[in-house]
């Protein structure tokens, strides 16, 4: 029973990390309408930054040449900030243009970063990667409870991002973002500097992905470029589409469903003896899930809730017109 619990814990931890990714993407796409196909880039930047900040200085046999041995909270913070900086650099040339440009440039950036990770051995350890990333409070929390402790940490991070996303729904900032998404010209006509708002949203979402990456680094304890393929971006998109874009709860639900689904299918070969077909089927089934979701629940399981102007006023206690 304890073994089963341990596996469920690890599934939930991964699901939590994907939930943070999905919440970040929700700020981009769900709230602001930014077509970001390179989400994994921010995830990778967060992961590698915290790894490099917290591991011990490399020995002679290791390929990478940095390791600062800083405390883990500093590393995580560094990972979040670094992802934000990359978002600014990417946003400057692309966010002023129409959204297709961002889609193309962001997918390109993600691939460039991945090739960079594979080839810049001095920084990332190359294909061999970085090992021995520390785990927070490892010595203090008892071993058998450690996985639960880390799950708690991830869930706290999910809760933080969720709270932010909820707040975004009813804050003036969030309203501007949604107005940009729905009709940018109208937002411009109302005197909003849409570039600035898009940039802010882009950076916030990227920082969430950076946080997810940092949590992943301290969970996996080893980083190699194979962990940062485009499939992460697309799995996050699937989570958001199935869960419901524009709805923070939907993003979390989608991530939970997709990851549980991916992991639950690991048990099918045992149950039905289908053997080798299952790993291949798993990806196809994720695809089928998207098709089904788009056909029957195009707005996702938990759709964005559109509030009428009257209700909006009532909520704000304006009393309407």
């Amino acid at each position, binding site marked *: 029973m304890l073994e089963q619990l341990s596996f469920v814990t690890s599934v939930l931890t991964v699901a939590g990390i994907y939930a943070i990714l999905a919440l970040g993407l929700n700020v981009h796409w769900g709230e602001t309408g930014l077509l970001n196909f390179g989400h994994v880039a921010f995830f990778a930047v967060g992961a590698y930054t915290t790894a490099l900040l917290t591991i011990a200085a490399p020995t002679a046999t290791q390929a990478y040449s940095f390791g600062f041995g800083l405390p883990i909270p500093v590393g995580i913070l560094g990972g979040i900030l670094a992802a934000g900086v990359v978002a600014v650099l990417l946003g400057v040339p692309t966010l002023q243009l129409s959204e297709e440009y961002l889609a193309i440039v962001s997918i390109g950036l993600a691939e460039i970063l991945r090739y960079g990770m594979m080839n810049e051995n001095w920084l990332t350890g190359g294909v061999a990667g970085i090992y021995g990333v520390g785990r927070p409070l490892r010595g203090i929390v008892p071993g058998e409870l450690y996985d639960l402790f880390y799950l708690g940490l991830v869930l706290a991070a999910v809760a933080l991002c969720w709270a932010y996303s909820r707040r975004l729904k009813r804050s003036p900032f969030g309203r501007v973002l949604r107005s940009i998404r729905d009709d940018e010209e109208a937002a411009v006509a109302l005197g909003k500097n849409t570039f600035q708002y898009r940039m802010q949203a882009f950076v916030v979402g990227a920082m969430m992905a950076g946080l997810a990456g940092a949590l992943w680094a301290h969970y996996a304890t080893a980083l190699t470029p194979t962990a940062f393929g485009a499939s992460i971006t697309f799995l996050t998109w699937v989570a958001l589409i199935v869960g419901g874009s524009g709805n923070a709860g939907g993003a979390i639900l989608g991530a*939970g469903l997709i990851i549980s689904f991916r992991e639950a299918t*690991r048990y099918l070969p045992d149950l039905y003896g289908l053997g080798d077909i299952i790993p291949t089927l798993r990806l196809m089934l994720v695809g089928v899930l998207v098709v089904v979701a788009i056909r029957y629940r195009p707005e996702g399981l938990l759709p964005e809730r559109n509030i009428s102007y009257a209700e909006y006023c009532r909520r704000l206690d304006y009393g309407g017109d």
Partner: protein
Amino acid sequence: MGGRETPIDRRSFLKTTAAAGATLGVAGCLGGSGGEGASLGVLQPFTGEVSWVGESSEVAVNIAVDEINEAGGMNGSDVEIITEDTEANQQTATSAIRKLIDSDGVSAILGPTSFTLPAVMNIAQESQVPIISPTAGTSVLDDMGGEYVFRTAMSDSLGGRAMARIAYDNGYDEIAVMYVDNQGGRSFGQTVIDGFEALGGTVTTDVALTPGKSSYRSELTKAFESDPEFVSLTAGTETGQIVIEQWAEQDLGGVWGLSDDMQTATFAEELGSNLEGSYALGPLTGGDKYDEFATEYESRANESPQPFTAEAYDATMLAALAAQAAESNQGSDLAGQIISASRDGDVVTSFEAGADALGNGANIDYNGASGPVDLTDRGNILSAFAVFQSTGSAWEQTGEIPAEDLEF
């Protein structure tokens, strides 16, 4: 502004809780059998570019498991194989290995490849379940294993050392080194340099080649600047062929030492007399045990054994024999017996013979399909190489480098 707090209406509350409940329900129902019996986990890529690795090694593992079960199983219980797909991706591999260890309670894990092994070895270490990889050649692991990480695959760095040996044994003392610029090529090239310098020779220059170019003339000029007598080249056949053709055009002199990728019949034939007198590394053709394995493999898979399959068979055997030696199917118990079952004792080549010898209180030295399978204290395998020389149209084996000569 009192209206700002969230009024959660009943429907959305119900929907959310129902959905969350469903998610937990899916996670909660994940039943599985753990603990009872004996199981081994196969952790390999079954999808993507390298899916052939998973498919072919599973066949080999099954051959071994059938033999083990026919001989009575691991400590009396039939061995069951549980396969998990890594997708050659670190994230998937991490989840997959946790499932194998936590949920299936496997005794040992066979796999994965170089792409993912470094990422999962900490998990094996922490859970005290041994990994025996038949497929990870990366030189990164050279000094990391020995406790819970072992491999029956040869380290990339052994090839480099063998190459240094060829140059040294044939009396060359100034060599140049050329290699394709990828993980494998780089680590091979580096070990040629380190190995040759350790033997007392001089490496005049080393040149990295970007694969897929149509001209390597400037790289050749650089490599042959100081007229080396021997040039080690690590590359695939396509790059290798272009390099050697352009070298012949320019009449630069010297002989080549080629990595094992180029030791193919067509390669020697196509380059013909240009290659005459040049050396190449190659695998030693296996003995009876390999032939026996190959026949069985062919009858099951309808193809001749793929690379790493003999190693996968041996990894499985080694895991089972170690369990037998430890008299326990617990990963943490059998891990300590893996190295000792591979060397220093009565030579055995099958599970049945090994189990009998262990039952009589003897130590065993398992020799398998891929060779003598003797693990070092760091869990690496030492392996002998064959040396080939070109006759001008074909490769001819002219010597052999015993495994002991590569420990330096």
